[in-house]
């Protein structure tokens, strides 16, 4: 599971933190990942000067955030949440309710979105006891229960029920775009950190063999719950930014299973367990979706359905694994 250059990053007992930092920068894969994150932020920071369709840029960023969230959960810990969109919706509603009902500003609203999704993640953390497909389907059930809760007539006083949320009081196209770029930067930086920190190493140890990880002193329950919360917070932040940008939405828009599916496919297609994989996967597949998908969505659904089959059968570790093997051969 672990490549040689990755195990090097693990903490060596007794080394001072300064040594760890220099060691990190000597590690070529860390420098590469950090460069990817910086380029990504640069592209989106100036994105609006070469792409007039702001919503397309925002959707790309939001899907990158979600794909990275799936990456943290599935790529690093092996838990695949089909209902990941539940956190996205929780973040969107956290933002909407705090700004429109409690009249807080937009930035506290973003924080509220993250907090709500983290609370949902903590409530759902017993699900982590389940493994494999049990967990995947249970998380789907949780997301479906959540949308029924939010759109329920009894919740109308808080969430406005099926009539949707309206954030016009804080509408601000410029600031919401910049916030989404910052959110993407934070999420990407978190994944870079996860991949190169002892914590990320512990996660991958749990994924590879849980009992051996526990034997070597990793607190399995605490570590995986923390990863679950990080991944939920990413989705919540994405949801809150998305809510701010689009300003008016209905429960079905932010709790759509399609969102989960897209994020999972983008992450898998690019390659999980890497920093660049989910980004490349989103750019390629969401690009294709925009080229052909908007007019006839069911053809795109057919294509991505078959694409999932092809990915699973022929490139289960994604494009990044293909790239890595090509580079590996070239450098040899």
């Amino acid at each position, binding site marked *: 599971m672990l490549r040689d250059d990755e195990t090097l990053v693990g903490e060596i007992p007794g080394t001072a933190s300064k040594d760890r930092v220099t060691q990190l920068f000597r590690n070529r894969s860390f420098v590469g990942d950090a460069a990817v994150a910086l380029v990504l932020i640069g592209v989106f920071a100036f994105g609006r000067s070469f792409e007039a369709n702001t919503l397309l840029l925002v959707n790309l960023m939001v899907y990158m955030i979600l794909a990275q969230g799936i990456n943290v959960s599935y790529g690093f810990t092996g838990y695949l949440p089909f209902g990941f969109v539940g956190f996205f919706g929780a973040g969107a509603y956290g933002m909407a309710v705090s700004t429109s009902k409690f009249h807080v500003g937009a930035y506290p609203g973003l924080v509220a979105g993250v907090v709500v999704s983290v609370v949902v993640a903590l409530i759902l953390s017993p699900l982590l006891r389940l493994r494999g497909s049990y967990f995947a389907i249970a998380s789907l059930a949780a997301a479906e229960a959540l949308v029924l809760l939010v759109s329920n007539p009894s919740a109308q006083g808080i969430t406005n029920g099926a009539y949707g949320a309206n954030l016009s009081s804080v509408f601000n196209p410029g600031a919401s775009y910049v916030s989404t770029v910052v959110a993407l930067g934070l999420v990407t930086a978190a994944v870079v950190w996860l991949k190169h920190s002892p914590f990320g190493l512990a996660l991958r140890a749990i994924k590879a063999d849980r009992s051996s990880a526990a034997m070597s002193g990793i607190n399995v329950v605490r570590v995986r719950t923390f990863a679950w919360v990080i991944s939920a917070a990413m989705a919540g932040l994405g949801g809150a930014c998305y809510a701010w940008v689009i300003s008016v939405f209905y429960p079905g828009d932010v709790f759509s299973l399609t969102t989960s599916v897209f994020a999972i496919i983008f992450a898998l297609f690019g390659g999980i367990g890497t920093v660049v994989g989910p980004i490349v996967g989103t750019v390629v597949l969401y690009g294709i979706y925009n080229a052909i998908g908007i007019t006839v969505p069911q053809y795109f659904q057919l294509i991505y*359905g078959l694409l999932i089959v092809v990915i699973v059968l022929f490139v289960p570790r994604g494009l990044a694994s293909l790239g890595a093997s090509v580079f590996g051969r070239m450098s040899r």
Partner: protein
Amino acid sequence: MLLEFALIGGVLTGMYYGFLAVGLNLVFGVLRFVNLAHGSVVVLGSYLTWELSNTWHLNPLLAGLIAFPPSLVLGAVIFYAVTPRLSRSADPEMLSLILFFGIAQAIEAITTIVFTSNRRALPGSTLGASSVSILGQRYPFYWVLGAAIAVPVFGAIYIYLYRTRLGLATRAVMSSPDDAASVGIDVKRVSAICLGVGLFLAASAGSLSIFIRGGTDPAQGIAVTTFAFTVIVIGGLGNPISSIAGGVVLGCAYNLAQAYAPSWSGVIPYGLLLAVMLIRPSGLFGSQVRVA
């Protein structure tokens, strides 16, 4: 009276829910993965039923029988195309779950392209009678019919599993594929047949689903799968006969919610699924937690 109606209705629809879910449980027991395309096949069965009734003016329930040959072929094709590569991969369980999700999406897309995304429904009168009186209250005829069909279906599954050689082989594969192979059972053939039978049970349940769910549309698939999964988790994963008990529990819970708190009834299948998974993951009749 309301309580009585909810409970009798719950038992009637619940037996049908068991029928709806039993194919999923059979496939899970034998192949050890959750067939996420189950609901999409149920929807396909519903469309076949609609076509039979509206285009050819035949009895809609014939769809439940016509679906048998194509289901077996589809099961064999999927099985032999997919499993050799999957079983060699690093994480066959999760990858097969994702793969069948892809198949479900493809089926849903093809259904949309062929039949459009418009909702199709059939009036209850196409089945003959429209309602039946039990203990002084009237119930939709298709509820009673669903239960009346579910009983022989479960009888046939019981006879297949416990009275035939193929059923014996099936149960052997369920308990241990390696041991089954070592005593000369053709595990691949048994698995391919079970996948086909599972898909057939889904498609034939679809011919009643169009009535009981009040219509069908291509996007229903994943909700039907989750619903069926709830039924088999309550009954016990990997024990097909127990699905009928799971169905009755879910049917009663759902109908009680419909009677007393209708706006919350949609939460019932999901809430019950989460509760059973966290409190008693083996279900009512599962002996142990099966790691898929």
